[in-house]
């Protein structure tokens, strides 16, 4: 529905329509500056502002003097909500602030998690679990490993590795020029090897393989030597 008074006359300054909010202090910063600038130059708007200010005071006084609700209304509301509290004591009431721009996701998470800790036994259980985990961690950290691999450095070596080191061996391998890449990859896969250096000017690669068992390494070397169609030369490097 369009009401005739909803359109402003051309004689009305646009700034004049913002004066009520200039007075109640809810204009955005740039609008406030704009209105203030206009007021410095416009006498009719200054008069309008004075008039509005007086009217605003009068309206506030007029409404402030009006009576409020009867105490019975308050009793009625409180009785209703207390009854609801009794009926639904475990009801989780969480703000739906995930959609809100002005609230951070941390606030939303906080409000989401907070009701979960409302029952008294929850913090006790959580604390017990944390203490238990801490005790377990300290116990595990304090235990010496039963069998330490020979090549794993210890704190007494002066250097402590951050990773989990494994024993390795290296082969010096030259592939046939006609060897397809797919077959070379299969060979590497079979021996769980990886190229760590090469090719050298004479076509040799250095391949590193896990070396937990010496007998296995010997078999592996023999197997590589048998694949003459793929491998031109292979030898084990001294570690």
């Amino acid at each position, binding site marked *: 529905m369009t009401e005739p008074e909803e359109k402003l006359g051309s004689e009305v300054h646009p700034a004049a329509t913002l004066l009520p909010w200039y007075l109640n202090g809810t204009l955005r910063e740039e609008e406030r500056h704009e209105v203030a600038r206009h007021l410095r130059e416009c006498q009719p708007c200054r008069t309008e502002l004075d008039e509005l200010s007086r009217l605003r005071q009068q309206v*506030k006084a007029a409404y402030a003097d009006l009576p409020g609700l009867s105490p019975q209304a308050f009793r009625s509301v409180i009785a209703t909500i207390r009854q609801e509290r009794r009926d639904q004591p475990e009801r989780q009431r969480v703000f739906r602030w995930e*959609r809100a721009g002005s609230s951070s996701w941390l606030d939303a998470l906080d409000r989401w998690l907070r009701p979960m800790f409302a029952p008294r036994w929850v913090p006790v259980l959580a604390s017990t679990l944390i203490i238990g985990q801490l005790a377990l961690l300290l116990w595990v950290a304090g235990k010496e490993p039963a069998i330490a691999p020979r090549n794993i450095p210890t704190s007494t070596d002066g250097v402590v590795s951050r990773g989990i080191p494994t024993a390795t061996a290296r082969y010096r391998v030259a592939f046939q020029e006609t060897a397809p890449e797919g077959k070379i990859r299969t060979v590497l896969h079979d021996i769980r090897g990886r190229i760590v250096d090469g090719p050298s000017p004479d076509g040799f690669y250095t391949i590193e393989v896990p070396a937990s068992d010496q007998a296995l390494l010997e078999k592996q070397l023999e197997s590589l030597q048998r694949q003459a169609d793929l491998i031109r030369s292979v030898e084990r490097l001294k570690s």
Partner: protein
Amino acid sequence: MDTTHEQNIVEVQIMAAVASGDTQAFERLYHVYEKRVFQYVSTFVRDQTVAEEIVVDVMVAVWRGACTFTNTSRVSTWIFGIARHKAIDALRKVIRSEHESMALDNVAHLPNPAEGPVESIDRKQVAALTRQAIAKLSREHQEVIRLAFFEDLPYEEIAILLGIPVNTVKTRVYYAKQQLKQQLDRLLSRESVP
């Protein structure tokens, strides 16, 4: 940061407590809003008993719906939105007599005609005259005068509450103010005539 903004931050915290089921926080919120909601509802429903029943409904709805408050508007806008919805709903149901008079019209003290301008009469008399003048405005004008001059809501929030464009809010408040001034001047001049 303006006072109403700071006030809203406090109210948002109270709302969070209400949402978590804190009845004391709700009582605090109730006392902040009971009279304001009652008066706002009274701009729609002139029967004070009905208005009071609506406020009870509104406050219970605030309690039940606190967890749905999204903080995208002020708490006051949210509560007045509920109040407006319920008041309009009630308005449709209530059958009013054509000559029903609003309590606002029943002003006890009118200014002494000899006293002349508004500055010379006491505060209570001015308030009474202003109430009389407000009561003569259309419901739409009464509503925006209250929201902009008494509740100090930003025009964007009034637009959201009323479901109208912001420019319409500005225009409506501008003309509501003109109407209010005319009514006040008329009342004052009537009182000035011997």
